[in-house]
């Protein structure tokens, strides 16, 4: 399967970053992969089912803190903790999905924003969530033997492997859904509401399902975040509205309804600011008068510009650039023999 190849390639890129000069960049690379997974779930919601959620980051936070509590306070086994968190996320997605039965579009966005805000406040209020600050986990034990601490380089490569496997899994699951009768139903409820009903598709059922799946994917991303970073992340710095918007941007820029587009979108939205702005900043600082320049705030401007440009010129997302290139190359190759034939 193409996704296994994709995941393997991603793993080796991550591995080479970890073994390279700047292993700290691997954190960003792992984030690209993790956000790709979350964006795949969000794409089912936004691209296919025509629904929107601004609580995605909050659901990721719930899952990292949930894992932390289960593993540290109750000493639950890693896999069992992950299973509990995913099931809990599914239930939560179902609850939030109920909102989508009553409202759509901007109203749904505002309602989910409110949900995210409530979750954020909950984190800040309870000690179990370390008052919303990030909390580290000591180490992860697999099958009672392999312990991964996240400090040793070998362990990090192992963890990158887990993230890559998660990526493959996420791609396969979404691919299977989208290509199945369920995928058709998701598209029907968003694009031909009345016909969907007349053809026997329960709009209620599929809206709830879409929210459940998107939330489970967000939680899965959260679990992988905790696994790789070995930290819950903080409510204010990680699991905030900004991240939810970034995830939406990944879906829009990558290409709604495109699965590989999510990886491309994440690579553009997360990767370009992290991997190119920082060296560019250092380069600018090399000039005397620009010594104190900072490009920190430019990430958001960059993301915003990209969204506008994408919607204006590539409504099907950046993935369309690649498919067009492919098309051009193919037609070039197909033309060549005929041209040769003409000459002869």
């Amino acid at each position, binding site marked *: 399967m193409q996704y296994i190849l994709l995941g393997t390639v991603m793993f080796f890129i991550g591995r080479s970053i970890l073994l390279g000069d700047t292993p700290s960049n691997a954190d960003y690379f792992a984030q690209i992969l993790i956000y790709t997974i979350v964006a795949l779930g969000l794409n089912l919601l936004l691209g296919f089912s025509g629904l929107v959620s601004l609580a995605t980051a909050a659901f990721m936070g719930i899952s990292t803190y949930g894992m932390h509590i289960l593993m540290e306070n109750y000493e639950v086994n890693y896999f069992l903790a992950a299973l509990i968190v995913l099931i809990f996320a599914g239930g939560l997605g179902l609850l939030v999905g109920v909102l989508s039965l009553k409202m759509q579009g901007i109203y749904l966005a505002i309602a989910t924003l409110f949900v995210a805000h409530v979750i954020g406040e909950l984190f800040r209020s309870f000690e179990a969530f370390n008052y919303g600050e990030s909390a580290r986990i000591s180490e992860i034990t697999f099958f009672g033997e392999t312990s991964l601490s996240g400090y040793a380089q070998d362990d990090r490569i192992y963890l990158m492997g887990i993230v890559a496997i998660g990526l493959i899994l996420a791609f396969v699951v979404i691919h299977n859904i989208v290509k*199945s*009768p369920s995928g058709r139903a998701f598209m029907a409820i968003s*694009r031909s509401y*009345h016909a969907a*009903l*007349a053809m026997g598709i329960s709009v209620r059922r599929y809206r709830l399902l879409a929210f459940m799946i998107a939330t489970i994917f967000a939680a899965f991303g959260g679990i992988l975040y905790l696994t790789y970073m070995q930290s819950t992340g903080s409510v204010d710095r990680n699991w905030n509205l900004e991240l939810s918007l970034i995830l939406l941007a990944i879906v829009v820029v990558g290409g709604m309804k495109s699965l590989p587009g999510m990886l491309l979108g994440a690579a553009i939205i997360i990767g370009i600011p992290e991997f190119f702005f920082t060296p560019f900043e250092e380069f600018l600082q090399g000039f005397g008068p620009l010594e104190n320049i900072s490009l920190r705030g430019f990430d958001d401007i960059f993301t915003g510009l990209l969204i506008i440009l994408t919607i204006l010129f590539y409504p099907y997302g950046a993935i369309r650039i690649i498919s067009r290139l492919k098309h051009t190359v193919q037609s070039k190759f197909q033309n060549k023999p005929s041209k040769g034939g003409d000459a002869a």
Partner: protein
Amino acid sequence: MSENVLSVKDLSMSFGGLKAVDSLSFHIKGKEILGLIGPNGAGKTTVFNCITQFYKNYEGIVILQGANKDKDLREVPVHKIIDYGIARTFQNLELIPDTSVMDNVLIGAHKDVKSNIIHHILQFPSLKRNEKRLKEKAERILAFLGIDHLKDAYVHGQPYGIMKLIEIGRALMGDPSLLILDEPAAGLNEKETKHLEGIVKKINEEYETAILLIEHNMGFVMDLCNTVIAINFGRFLAQGTPKEVQNNKAVQEAYLGEAES
């Protein structure tokens, strides 16, 4: 003709103070093509929406005559109507533009999808078999409609006439015993209308489907329908063969008279 398929009794539906449908009663018999005509705003589409349960707060009763017992359709949720053999098309096209013609037609077979999303994620072998069966059926229907060459094309960008046929194809996927067509010929040119006429007739004969249709194109209605019911302001005007209704004074005043002016 054979027995009734569907009976509508004293159907009334109002929006605010406006009575869109006013105590209307009629029957559809098996294998019959029944045309519902009337000027714009006469309440024709409202009747369809009541029959297919998009509206629930109507007065009166819509009864489906089954082989064993009758069913009051009000008890049936809108998305279960197709299970009772009633499929419909829409006046304003309701297709998924950004997917293939095939996928759009397959939507019509959703009630025959017995697998759930877990089966789909895990790719159960039964899913593949079922999908293959549905695709073959869809291909037969597309061939029947004469658009099987377009099955992999996107719906977006297809001519209007083709989209109308796709909607009919989708409705046929549900093996309806009653097919409800909301202005099937609207927006079609003369050639397309003739083609459609042939298709509707063939559906009626080969699929043995009763057909209820709304249409403004009088030629189309007169050629196809066994029975025509004319309504105006939601009220019954006349019923009979196309000729009888055409010659009815009340109908001429309300409908044809207006059309000529």
